[in-house]
């Protein structure tokens, strides 16, 4: 079903187009089975930054208050990009490895069970 409108040919203005973010793109990042942070984060970053910068600077700025952040073993952590298994390349830009505007990145750290082993 499409929108029923008074007149034919109606279309809505896409509010969150890439061009509206002043050179940045959005990337959403969530830490699976980790609920100290109540929701994933919305990060506005340049599409040209390497993945390493996203992880170690931008993500660290929001995730590091968690006491287990520094214990993450990135060699064994798993990643999902828009629902599909993903192996990030640290030196390659986001854009060049398919992380585009409004992509969702999720990471898993199964060896870290959180506070009281309750995924906190």
């Amino acid at each position, binding site marked *: 079903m499409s929108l029923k409108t008074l007149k034919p040919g109606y279309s*809505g203005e896409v*509010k969150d187009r890439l061009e509206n973010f*002043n050179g940045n793109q959005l990337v*959403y990042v969530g830490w699976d089975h980790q609920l100290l942070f109540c*929701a994933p984060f*919305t990060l506005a970053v340049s599409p040209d930054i390497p993945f390493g910068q996203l992880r170690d600077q931008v993500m660290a700025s929001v995730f590091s208050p968690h006491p287990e952040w520094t214990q993450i073993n990135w060699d064994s952590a798993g990643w999902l990009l828009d629902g599909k298994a993903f192996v990030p390349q640290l030196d390659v830009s986001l854009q060049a490895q398919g992380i585009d505007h409004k992509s969702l990145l999720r990471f898993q750290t199964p060896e870290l069970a*959180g506070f009281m082993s*309750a995924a906190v």
Partner: protein
Amino acid sequence: MAAKKLNTKDKYRLLTRDLDWEFSYEDRKQAFPFEEFEGIKITDWSKWEDPFRLTMDTYWKYQAEKEKKLYAIFDAVAQNNGHTNISDPRYANALKLFLTGVSPLEYQAHQGFAHTGRQFGGVGARIACQMQSIDELRHVQTQVHAMSHYNKFFDGFQDWSHMHDRVWYLSVPKSFFDDARSAGPFEFLVAISFSFEYVLTNLLFVPFMSGAAYNGDMATVTFGFSAQSDEARHMTLGLEVIKFLLEQHEDNVPIVQEWIDKWFWRGTRLLTLVSMMMDYMLPNKVMSWKEAWEVYFEEAGGALFKDLARYGIRAPKYAETIEKEKEHVSHQAWWLFYSYGDATAFHTWIPSDEELDWLSEKYPDTFDKYYRPRWEMAKKMEAQGKRFYTKGLPQLCNCCQIPLMFTEMDNPTQLAYRDTVYKDERYHFCSDGCHDIFVAEPEKYVQSWLPVHQILQGNCGGPGLEDVLRDYYRMNVGADNLDMKGSPDEQRWNSWKGVA
């Protein structure tokens, strides 16, 4: 000789149905241009049963009598320093949420019913909408008056209508009503009169009004009583709308079902705010959110949908998901607001040990296992002098606009993610319910004004979060927001009560 005074029946006929007229030189279809585009077929408007059974003069008389009593109580509350009689200063925060989140919806309902009422060819429906429109205007006015007394003594009440239009979490109720008001007139009635007023209103009204009664808030209780007979009429209108549409034409059934599915889901997402108010913000608890959901939706709603089955209407889609979520949503929501408590126009706090035990008792299957550990962690951090506030902005659902804080019901430590791609652009949702609503009408929801995205586009001032809060949201930063502990609200309360 004609009687000097009309009998009730004649008066009713003359002042309702007789207000309509025939169109002799204008095309009736052009006079009511919104009546057909939604696909609803009306064969006979005269079959509309007036749910209100009221004429305008009687209506004014009743409402004026209620107003007199109501304002006498407001005066008494003010003269007797009613704000010092509430159970605990934390209670005032439930009122701040109501004033900024719910009262503006009364105004939206006023506007919505005024517009919708104009669009119906049937005079009965027009008059019902007109009266409800006036009711809703009265509700927003009396709510503002009821709470104006608290505004003199507590922070966070001062700029409620401005905040409603801008503050991140208030975009949840605002976008709900914007969605309904930008729909056609029949969808508006199914959304607001039926799905919201009839099916879900008890879950909004009873918690706030009983909450007021349990917590010594005479002004709000009295407002509640004054609005009760109006709400009863609104519910009757909701039921009449559904029965009328379903009886008019069988082609209406699938359209109405789709609207019920959509608005039931949107309504329950909106009520997430009420769930946390009941379980966490009321110092004296009325009942748990889970219990309220069971009484007011599962029992009452179950009977309703059994009754509607004869028209071919089934229970709303995803009702079974919501049944499981009743164990979780209030805890997830209060954690969201606690952890973003530096960006809220009300205070947040860690529940007391007694409250944590109450939650364990009310939620034996979920609280200790999933939610108590978060509060233990928060307590530990607070004891170290590091009260926990999340840095960074959350990801929002493109439909309900709530952060993606809901978890999978078969895997409650995993956040739920849903997405879709429309015209090469990716959109994210908190649930199947919100996903389906977008997919059905993408051209509407690509326009969602998502507060987080708007901040990141630079449309809300800044650059820092505090600049946005102070200049764009008009919060008194340091007074309206942050923890209850150490707040000016708490300090004033302690000085009134002579506590050091």
